[in-house]
């Protein structure tokens, strides 16, 4: 498989960022009329989180765990234009306390990835994506909710350099993410130090930036990465309160990614760890996937 969406669970706290779990963030493309279907399992957990800037534990949550199973087809329209989709089923639980776990189908995502420019080993890519909630899950029972129940649109610019002989590569990208308002079951809620008398919740927009360094060879790939995902604004978790959709969540993560796919069937794996954050859990996450590639003859 050539194209992979990794990165389930950026693993920010609180399930919501799991909504962005399926971002195409590599410079690898499927060939024309090639389809790759990935089945992925992801596990993310934290036992400490940043309540505003205060790093704390919570004995009434213990360890919060978010798991998901995701199907993710990627298709090559041409070798420079790929379409990628994903649909996860997500479930949450805690090791302590009495908050009821939530489960269900989350949001469907679609991405269009275009290799816009190639100069030697250097390439420039434009990626646009969007997601729409599919399941009717509750968005504001955080940290148990499985998603944020908002539509998203993301634009990403990615630059890549690959050394032709060794397969050594360096990728860097930055994105802007728009998120629609979400709707609560309640018709009043508190945010920004005031009460809003409406069921509409303004969910902050986001940006992200990442660098990845790795080696890509025929049949295998290994990579280390660092990434920052953050809201552009938002409020903070109040002292000893639960997180909320309006929070300014920020996280800096590091991790490793690897893939082994000698022929049509392959496997991949990813691990990530949040090293610093704001209004998010300090997650440790891993993803394992099975990849299956099909070629359609024209």
């Amino acid at each position, binding site marked *: 498989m050539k194209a992979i969406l990794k990165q389930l669970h950026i693993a920010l706290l609180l399930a919501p960022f799991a909504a962005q779990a399926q971002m195409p963030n590599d410079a690898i493309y499927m060939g024309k009329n090639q389809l790759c279907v990935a089945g992925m399992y992801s596990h993310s957990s934290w036992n400490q989180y940043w309540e505003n800037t205060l790093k704390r534990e919570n*004995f009434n949550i213990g360890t919060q765990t978010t798991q998901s199973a995701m199907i993710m087809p990627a298709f090559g329209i041409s070798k420079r234009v790929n379409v990628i989709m994903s649909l996860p089923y997500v479930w949450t639980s805690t090791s302590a306390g009495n908050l*009821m776990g939530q489960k269900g189908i989350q949001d469907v995502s679609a991405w269009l990835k275009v290799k816009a420019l190639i100069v030697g080993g250097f390439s420039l890519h434009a990626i646009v994506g969007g997601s729409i909630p599919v399941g009717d899950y509750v968005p504001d029972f955080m940290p148990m909710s499985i998603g944020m129940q908002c539509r998203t649109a993301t634009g990403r610019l990615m630059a890549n350099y690959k050394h032709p002989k060794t397969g050594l590569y360096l990728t860097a990208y930055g994105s802007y993410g728009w998120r629609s308002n979400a709707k*609560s079951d*309640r018709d009043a809620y508190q945010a920004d130090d005031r009460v809003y008398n409406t069921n509409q919740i303004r969910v902050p927009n986001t940006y992200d930036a990442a660098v990845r360094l790795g080696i890509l060879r025929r049949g295998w790939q290994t990579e280390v990465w660092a990434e920052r995902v953050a809201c552009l604004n938002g409020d903070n978790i*109040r002292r000893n309160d639960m997180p909320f959709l309006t929070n300014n969540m920020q996280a800096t993560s590091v991790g490793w990614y690897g893939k082994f796919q000698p022929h049509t069937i392959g496997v991949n794996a990813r691990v990530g760890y949040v090293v610093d954050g704001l209004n998010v859990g300090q997650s440790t996450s891993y993803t394992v996937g099975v990849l299956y590639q099909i070629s359609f003859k024209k």
Partner: protein
Amino acid sequence: MKKQSHFIAFCAIIIALSAGLNSCSKTIDEPQLSAYAPTSVDEKAGTWKTYVLTAPTDVTVAAPAAISSADYLAEVASLKQKAASLSSAQQDAVTYWGAGAVFRWNEIARELSARYNIPPASTPDGKYPVPDAANPLADPKFPFSNPPYTARALAYLSVAQYDALVSAWHYKYLYNRVAPGKTDATIKPLLPVSSLPSYPSEDAVVAAASAVILKAMFPGEVAYLDAKLAEHRDSRLWAGMNVESDLTAGVALGNAVAAKVMARAKVDGMSAANNQTVTAGMIQGAKERGLADVWVSQETPARPPMLPNYGAVQTWNFDKTTLIKLRPGPPPALNSPEFTTALDELKQINKSQTRDQARIANYWSDGAGSYTPPGHWHRTAANAAHDAQYSEVRMARTLALLGTAEMDAAIACWDAKYYYYYPRPQQFGVKTSVGLPNFPSYASGHSTFSGAAATVLSSIFPDKAKDFDDEANEASTSRIYGLIHYRFDSATGLVHGNNIGSYAVTRAKADGSGL
């Protein structure tokens, strides 16, 4: 060539994206409330029965200057000068406060209740520090504005507003000084003007009385409340609705009445409501009556129960003998078939809660960070009174009847909860989708608050009685769907609340309003 086409596609994506984002509005629509001239000015309200004042003349208001006096004419001239150069912020303030004085201060009180409704965090040594009124902005903030605290804050607010307005109405019709817009045709008031005499200003009365109560209830918000008070007062000048002496007299009256109301609050027993030493006797009593497992805090570390002695706080619409008489009968024994049936229902919901059950549980959750069920019902009442275009004094009467009933409900419910000390479903392995309150189960507080509120509001707004009853039933059932109450907790609480509310209704029928 190929390279070029990809570059064009790339540019197209960027352009499409930026265009798309610009058209995706993130505005939030909140209800906009407009000013109205009341359907009735309730000119006899100066004779209505007050709660704390013994007579509307307990506080004296001096006679105003005549509208022909030089002093008055100077005040009118000053109004015209202000109106000539209003900033947009001043116009916004006029619009905001124009929605109603009682209405806005009730809304402010709800907002403060929500902002202070967070249980203290535990310390590293496993203790829960008690909020300190002398140091309100330290961690934990004072107050922890939980449902009983909020019920009480809103009750005193509404009572102070009502008593002060009854007194104001007395003086308004005693002195009969007409509004400036009616003495000088060149004044163009920005809000609807009724036939109500303008001295003392009802807005200033409400603003001052409200600020006194709320500063006492939320001592960390003095600067915020002073700013609101000043803006409200000044907005009446900017709007051309009151002259300076209307406002000065109104503020003095509001302050004086609120001070009398606060004198009651200081000795109503709230200072002993969190007396944790009483719980040993309560637990012993419940066990002696045959309860096998008493309520135990489900938090880690175990949190002391919320306000165990709140049941001893002074009630409004009935006495302590009646409080005991109204107390619900005992809940089912833990080894009874009734209990098993109720617990099985919860286990079933725990396994397969429907989305609609979750929606109802969430809508009425009114938990931490919210203005609690009493705040929820105050909002319902304030909106209904606004829709009905009530005068300020009638709006205050409505909220005082509701507010005192809600505080009575809190007291009676807390009395029952700690008398029976009944365990929560979470002590039998049930989770929750709304968060678990830290006090005994029987009977349901939401149900008691909602039963009392629906009874009071149905009496005041008979056309909407069915809506209020439906809402109370749904609020009551929501606690079963949220998995924190047995069905008998909710059913009992609702009836208890109805009974409590009926005492406020009895008062309403006899308060001289004829309403």
